[in-house]
């Protein structure tokens, strides 16, 4: 990590929000069609893009749709017609797109969108949480998660390389935390247009993807039944698997041009000699890294595995990195209904036998906009160390809601009151 805010030759150092970084990333990718609809905490992205468009800095068709469902439908169709597209949403907006999100994946339309993570249980849940991401997890999109404003910008640009790659052709959703990252202003190295053009030009050298054009005697969007459907679904699954190695490749090419790497499917922080590990994603990872440094100073061998690619689930690299660690604490900023642990914990648990005896626990924190503080991270590290030391530790801890960790927390209210 460079320790001076220094721009690469020609690029510009700016202090901008995560949302502005997403908008600039989209602008640099030169999309043909952008659909825009407001929702907190995403609105700033489409405002910025509208401004770029109004100033003539962005030569795209800007569709100011009447709702998110239309945003996704419009960009899906434009993408299938051959265009490069962008849209952004959050929370209720994302789930209002849901049918079109499924159709976009089914049609293998290489859409790139940003979802700014926000809760969904009630309309006033204007708060950070990854539950919206979990709600759309099984749609067949590639999911990438950013930690910093710089990573937001870079990952949006990289997403086009992944989505539009001839051998992938799967839509990509870039996620980052609402409020904690969407409204955070920090130092971002804004790359030169010509460098981004060069980075994306690889796509032009590939075979042209199938496009829906007038007179083209070609149709799309119609999975049928039986055989054809099975073929299309299996191809989709295979493309998802291929996207893992492709994302690693893209990260390396990105580094060669822009001089920075964020890691591929995962980022490893002080992992090599770590005995205990926290697994996390998104903006919490910055705080976790800072706390790890302090813990390391006092001799605790702790590291971080940051999930950058969440769909497909990077199980192979995770197993490789986590194998043999004494204890693993997985931090989820969302819930997995029907399971006690968080979604990422539950998924990693499926690979427990391959981890060679590493013990695992689940932490739920940061939902409902609760702050994943340094103190919370410290508590999570300490608990994971206790687990490594063979102490009796709860399988699931709600870090910011200690009541959940009480022995009778799962009893119905009627029983706690002493009967109905």
């Amino acid at each position, binding site marked *: 990590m460079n320790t001076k*805010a220094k721009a690469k030759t020609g690029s510009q150092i700016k202090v901008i929000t995560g949302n502005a970084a997403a908008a600039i990333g989209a602008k640099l990718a030169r999309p043909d069609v952008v659909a825009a609809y407001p929702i907190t905490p995403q609105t700033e992205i489409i405002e910025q893009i509208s401004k770029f468009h109004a100033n003539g800095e962005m030569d795209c068709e800007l569709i100011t749709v009447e709702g998110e469902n239309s945003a996704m439908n419009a960009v899906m169709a434009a993408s299938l017609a051959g265009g490069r597209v962008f849209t952004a949403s959050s929370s209720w907006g994302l789930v209002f797109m849901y049918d079109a999100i499924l159709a976009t994946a089914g049609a293998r339309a290489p859409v790139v969108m940003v979802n700014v993570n926000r809760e969904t249980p009630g309309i006033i849940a204007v*708060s950070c949480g990854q539950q919206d991401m979990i709600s759309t997890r099984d749609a067949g999109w590639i999911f990438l998660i950013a930690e910093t404003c710089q990573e937001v910008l870079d990952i949006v640009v990289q997403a086009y390389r992944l989505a539009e790659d001839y051998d992938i052709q799967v839509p990509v959703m870039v996620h980052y935390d609402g409020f904690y990252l969407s409204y955070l202003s920090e130092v971002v190295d804004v790359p030169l247009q010509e460098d981004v053009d060069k980075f994306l030009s690889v796509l032009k050298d590939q075979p042209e993807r199938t496009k829906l054009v007038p007179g083209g005697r070609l149709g799309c969007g119609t999975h049928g039944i039986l055989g054809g459907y099975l073929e299309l679904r299996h191809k989709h699954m295979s493309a998802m698997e291929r996207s893992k190695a492709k994302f690693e490749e893209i990260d390396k090419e990105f580094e060669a041009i822009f001089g920075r790497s964020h890691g591929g499917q995962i980022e490893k922080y002080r992992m090599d000699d770590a005995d205990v590990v926290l697994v996390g994603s998104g903006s919490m990872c910055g705080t976790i890294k800072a706390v790890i440094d302090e813990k390391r100073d006092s001799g605790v061998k702790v590291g971080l595995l940051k999930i950058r690619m969440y769909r497909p689930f990077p199980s192979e690299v995770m197993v490789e990195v986590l194998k043999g660690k004494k204890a693993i604490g997985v931090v989820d900023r969302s819930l997995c209904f029907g399971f006690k642990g968080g979604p990422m914990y539950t998924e990693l648990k499926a690979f427990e036998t391959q981890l060679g005896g590493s013990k695992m626990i689940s932490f739920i924190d940061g939902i409902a906009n609760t702050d994943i503080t340094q103190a919370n991270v410290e508590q999570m590290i300490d608990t994971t160390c206790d687990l490594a030391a063979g102490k009796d530790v709860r399988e699931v801890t709600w870090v910011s809601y200690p009541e959940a960790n009480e022995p009778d927390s799962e009893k119905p209210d009627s029983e706690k009151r002493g009967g109905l």
Partner: protein
Amino acid sequence: MSEVRFHGRGGQGVVTTSKILANAFARTGRFGASFPMFGFERRGAPVTAFGRFSDKPVREKTQIYNPDIIVVLDPTQRNSEAVFQGLLPDGMMLLNDSDITINVSHENLKKLGIINANKIAMEEIGLSIPNTVIVGAFAKMSGLLEIEPCCDALQDYFSGKKLDANIVCAKRGFEEIKLFDL
């Protein structure tokens, strides 16, 4: 790393103050990060923002519970508990107030800067939006910044005559702040 908490009201430019300061730090090759406490946006509602300024990249993405410095744009909040909450020993406070006398106190408060930013803003930009005056005053009080990068940073937020007027605001904030050691 300096951790700064900003208190004010919607319409005073509280969030912009912390953004401009982060921007000024970046212009000196250092790092700054700023973000607002979240709530429904409304003119006049209490607003809190956070700023971290450092020689190294700022990684923490949390609210600030133990600030080194507190900046109060809204004088009615100057003695509120929320403002002083968690202030570290040897803490500093920058206060926007028309009353340039020491009328705040806290055990950890060692340095106090007072500036009549509303008055300066009225004179220079014709609006009682104190934020750019506060930027200059902050640079002086904290000793973390020269005035030049602050003025340069303003280019990212204003243009034309507004930029010129706000540069004057920042400079006057830098020059006219009254500092008290407590």
